[in-house]
């Protein structure tokens, strides 16, 4: 099922330039793009964070290890990237501290790219979070991590079909061994610079009454906040009575989420 690359293709592929990567550690005085690392607990976000930034954040094989948000940077093809390692969460819909930190950062911090790290051996449960993130931001890359373990468990994931289903790039990786990292960086770069345009998956199986309510509310939101990128998700949160989002609507904070065109300066507020 996995199509084999023709010989020689790797050498000419733009991803094949690991030398282009410059690990900046914590020295981030200016940056062009903000990249958030989201994902379920214990999927290897911190390991990926370390291999991208060259930092040595403590990693551990237990969920809930990242208790504070870690930041670092890397440079690739002349652009400086600021990388933010978010605490792992199973969902963005309930109200634990971790989930709020992750949710607020993805929504209000407006990362240019959100990398959703996925445990390939627990795909279904991880896709729950992916679908939720894709409701908030379409500018995402899915990193299909722990491929080595998936192979050990004799699981095969058709990453092309997955990318087609989700509408965002999917990169298979084994971050502990550094496998797939160059390709991931390249995809991040493509999404950040707008070379790759995502068509993010939206939740499709909701009941008709909900569908109708959402589309009505999206219309209203469109009048108040033209060009809001995640109106559907905001509508869902409002229907559920999320106080934080209601406040953002009332104060007009939500208007700041309307994305400025490509290449403009990134948002300041990241915290």
């Amino acid at each position, binding site marked *: 099922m996995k199509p084999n690359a023709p010989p020689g293709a790797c050498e000419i592929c733009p991803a094949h330039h690991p030398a282009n990567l410059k690990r900046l550690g914590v020295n981030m005085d200016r940056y062009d793009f903000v990249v958030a690392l989201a994902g379920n607990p214990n999927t290897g976000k911190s390991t990926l964070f370390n291999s991208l930034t060259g930092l040595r954040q403590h990693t551990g094989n*237990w969920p809930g290890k990242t208790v504070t948000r870690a930041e670092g940077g890397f440079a690739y093809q002349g652009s400086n990237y600021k990388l933010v390692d978010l605490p792992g969460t199973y969902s963005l*819909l309930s109200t634990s501290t971790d989930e709020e930190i992750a949710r607020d950062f993805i929504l209000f911090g407006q990362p240019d790219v959100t990398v959703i790290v996925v445990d390939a051996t627990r795909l279904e449960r991880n896709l*729950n979070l992916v679908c939720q993130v894709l409701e908030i931001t379409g500018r995402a890359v899915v990193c299909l991590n722990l491929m080595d373990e998936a192979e050990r468990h004799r699981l095969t*994931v058709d990453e092309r079909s997955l990318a087609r289903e989700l509408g965002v790039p999917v990169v298979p990786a084994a971050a502990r061994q550094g496998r797939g990292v160059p390709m991931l960086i390249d995809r991040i770069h493509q999404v950040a610079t707008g070379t790759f345009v995502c068509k993010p998956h939206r939740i499709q*199986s909701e*009941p008709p009454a*909900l569908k109708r309510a959402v589309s009505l509310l999206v219309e209203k939101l469109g009048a*108040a906040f033209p060009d809001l990128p995640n109106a559907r998700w905001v509508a869902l949160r409002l229907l559920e009575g999320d106080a934080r989002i209601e406040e953002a609507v009332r104060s*007009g904070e939500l208007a700041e989420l309307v994305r400025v065109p490509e290449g403009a300066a990134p948002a300041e507020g990241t915290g």
Partner: protein
Amino acid sequence: MSPANTREEVLEAAANLRWEVGPNLHDSLMEALYTDAARITDRVLSRDDARPAFDLDRTIDRLVTSRWLGFPIMMLLMAVVLWVTITGANVPSSLLSSLFLETLHPALKQAAAAAGLAWWLDGLLIDGMFLAMAWVVSVMLPPMAIFFPLFTLLEDFGYLPRVAFNLDRWFKKAGAHGKQALTMAMGYGCNAAGVVATRVIDSPRERLIATLTNNFSLCNGRWPTQILIATIFIGSLAPPALAGLVSAGSVMAVVLLGVGCTFLVSWGLSRTLLKGEASAFSLELPPYRPPRILQTIYTSLIDRTLIVLWRAVVFSVPAGAAIWLVSNIHLGGVSLAEHLIQGMNPFGLLIGLNGVILLAYIIAIPANEIVIPTVLMLTVLSVGLPGVGEGAGVMFEFDSASATLGVLEADGWTLLTGINLMLFSLLHNPCSTTLYTIWKETGSVKWTAASALLPIAMGFLVCFCVAQVFRWLGG
């Protein structure tokens, strides 16, 4: 229409529509998410259904979380880690201490003499501050450099969540959070690190319980005390062939007593000052992963060992100065230290300790690892043994356990003093590094004070009771 009005309209519309979609919005949304996720998974995932005859992960899990084998395996692993730490640290520790104490210390003294430094300045700087720092580094660095990487390897392998799984039932009964097992385990390396690790606990109530009880995990600064005293007082009771086993067993008993105290105090706190139910949490048991050894050693050395060591050094330097000062400031011909020892001796003897031990614990607050050298120095000072030791306010340690025993017995130490010192080493206030960390993490003077006073009160009580029983038995 003003923008504020349009915005209010959105909220209004949402409030109205909420009635239409009904109260099950959250559920139907979750359902939609699950349906989508399942559908996509179905399309992209294929598995080789030929089940392997032997699933390693499952087998390991069945063993380490088994009802019967779980606890013995846990204790065995802990004993192995401790044994490797203790035996492995011996050689580098003695190398470091000979470097610091036999080479650097005399060299510094000579340089000071050559420079014509005043005797008190030379004493304060070299015999006080430098020696305290040298002690802390040579006693603390090797065990930490072994313990933390071993611990991190177990963590990387995926064992720690299983420990939490095994202990969860007990913590729940005590009204505490199951993740406290993780912070408790960290405490065996260093309580300050354990206190920082309580950040993994969401509920503030349960986090405070974990913080307050972390001190009951014997930190590596206290291991040397335990091992030395167990060897010279308890191991010597057994025939030589069994001495090692008996003393190791008695140290393990103190460790288990600490675990018992953790549960007891957690239980007490969650029923009095920190009332509440244990909160539920989900802890995924991650797959076992072969640990990356070099990387683990590197990160645990940088992240844990050096940071903890540095803090201990910072706190030990003023302690060294204090030790030297109390032994060298004389009031009415007698040093301040002797005044203090005499003053505290009655209370000390009442609880089966003595004035020297109490004073040593007061001036060694910055770092538990300098307790034993301070005790020896103060004992020699107060007993006035001629020709032993290095002079007033100079910390030293004997090369052999029997020489130590000789000095201690000259000061009236008995088996009771030994046992109680081991108990008191477990049950006393945390070192100042840990207290500072607790204060920084909780931001509360009240809880910092509580975490210092609670164990010390328990220590006095336990030592007093043991002393009464011991004397009653005619020991």
